[in-house]
């Protein structure tokens, strides 16, 4: 039985950070595609249909990770891919006080399936991805 490689889309505006994370993902034999902003990420979610999305929250635009995540989970445009798991990858301190959970939910925003702090520990990242892709 041949198993196609699973595809992960990483959306982050820092190309070096993408490269470092790509190294981790490739070491676990994932196929990796990247997008450098939420708008490009939005297009690629629809065209590439990734198995999972790693999403940076703070990007230099009003259309940020929160908005994109909310759109994927709730908008009609994304109906066909709305079950794609999303992991927020962000330097937690920037979303002040988020240690105890995703605050956006209180403001009626659809939350991600998981979130992980920058810098990510390779083993932790792979374990979290694996868990979401297996279920």
């Amino acid at each position: 039985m041949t198993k196609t490689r699973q595809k992960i889309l990483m959306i982050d505006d820092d190309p070096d950070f993408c490269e470092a994370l790509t190294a981790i993902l490739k070491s676990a034999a994932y196929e990796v595609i990247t997008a450098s902003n939420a708008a490009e990420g939005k297009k690629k979610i629809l065209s590439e249909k990734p198995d999972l999305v790693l999403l940076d929250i703070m990007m230099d635009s009003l259309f940020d990770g929160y908005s994109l995540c909310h759109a994927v989970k709730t908008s009609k445009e994304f109906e066909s891919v709305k079950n794609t798991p999303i992991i927020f990858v962000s330097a937690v301190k920037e979303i002040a006080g988020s240690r105890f959970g995703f605050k956006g939910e209180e403001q009626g925003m659809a939350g991600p399936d998981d979130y992980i702090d920058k810098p990510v520990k390779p083993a932790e990242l792979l374990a979290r991805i694996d868990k979401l892709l297996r279920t």
Partner: protein
Amino acid sequence: MPEPLVLIIDDEESMRDACTQILLKSRYRTETADNGASGLQKIRDLRPDAVIVDLKMPGTSGFEVLENLKLIDPQIMTIVITGYATVDSAVEAMKKGAYDFLPKPFTPEELRVILARALERRRLALEADALRREKKLLEENVITMVSHQLRSPLVTIQQYFEVILSGIAGPVGEKPKEMIGRARDRLDGLLNLINDWLDMARIDAQRLIGTFEFLDLRKLLEKLLEFMGPLARESGTSLEWAGVPGSAAEVQGDAETLEQVFTNLLSNAIKYNKPGGRVRLILKEDRECVIVEIQDTGIGISQEHLPFIFDQFFQISRSESGKMKGSGLGLAIAKKIVEAHNGRIEVASSLGMGSTFTVRLPKIQPAGASA
């Protein structure tokens, strides 16, 4: 921008008509009201730029219009018309917020000049307001932006270190591994410093009050204890919860920053403890305050250092504390937050025996209590 809208409130039809005629020639938009009450209603609905109001009207007087106008929008300019041109009533009107007054009879030119001046004044006031708002917004955004831009490159460097240390990019010898590990730790320290610095800049008492809500400190502390469990176990410290049952725990506060205060105090208590030490978290009350105490059995603070412990950048040297340096801002931030809540933070300590940090926050007085 549309032409300025001027509302004329006067019970005399001839006066309303005359003013309207004069103003239309100067290309103002006009509205009229024949009594004070309907004038106020039009002010609420139309938000005119300026109001010309007769002081002496049956029913709601010009003075009453002035008083209410101030509550609706103090930026609306008012010019009062006084039939009985006594200085007294004009002065009283100015005291009540009128911009200027016009004694009857007046020439079209006099009305135009006064109105133009009033509107210019209004334009400047509105502009200054907009500038103030913009400046405030910019200040808030600068902190977020600086935070993001300072942190991003550092986080990326750390990410590379993580990848290298995990061996994903190729085998790494013991010595380089150790060195990169140390570099990563120093970078951690730098990131913490930046975080603390930005917190210090961000915590603004005025702005905090805007986010105050009813808070159950008991719940907040129990959640924190759970969160701190792993850190305590890791360092072999026992963590005890000693909330006095039935003790008041409700305060008015900002959950996020108070959480930060107690996280900081608890993690210090764990970090600077002795092996096998103990940390007790106590919740109690006195007449005015909800009191939270964090007691540790750690290294303690010497009497000479005690007075400076809440100062910015004060640090006990590494050889004395035996720990990695922090930013020296943690307790200063805690103090700033507690004081923004009208509370107090204190410390009692003896070297080698441990420290007790006490946070007092004003209780919410039960409704109807006379005290």
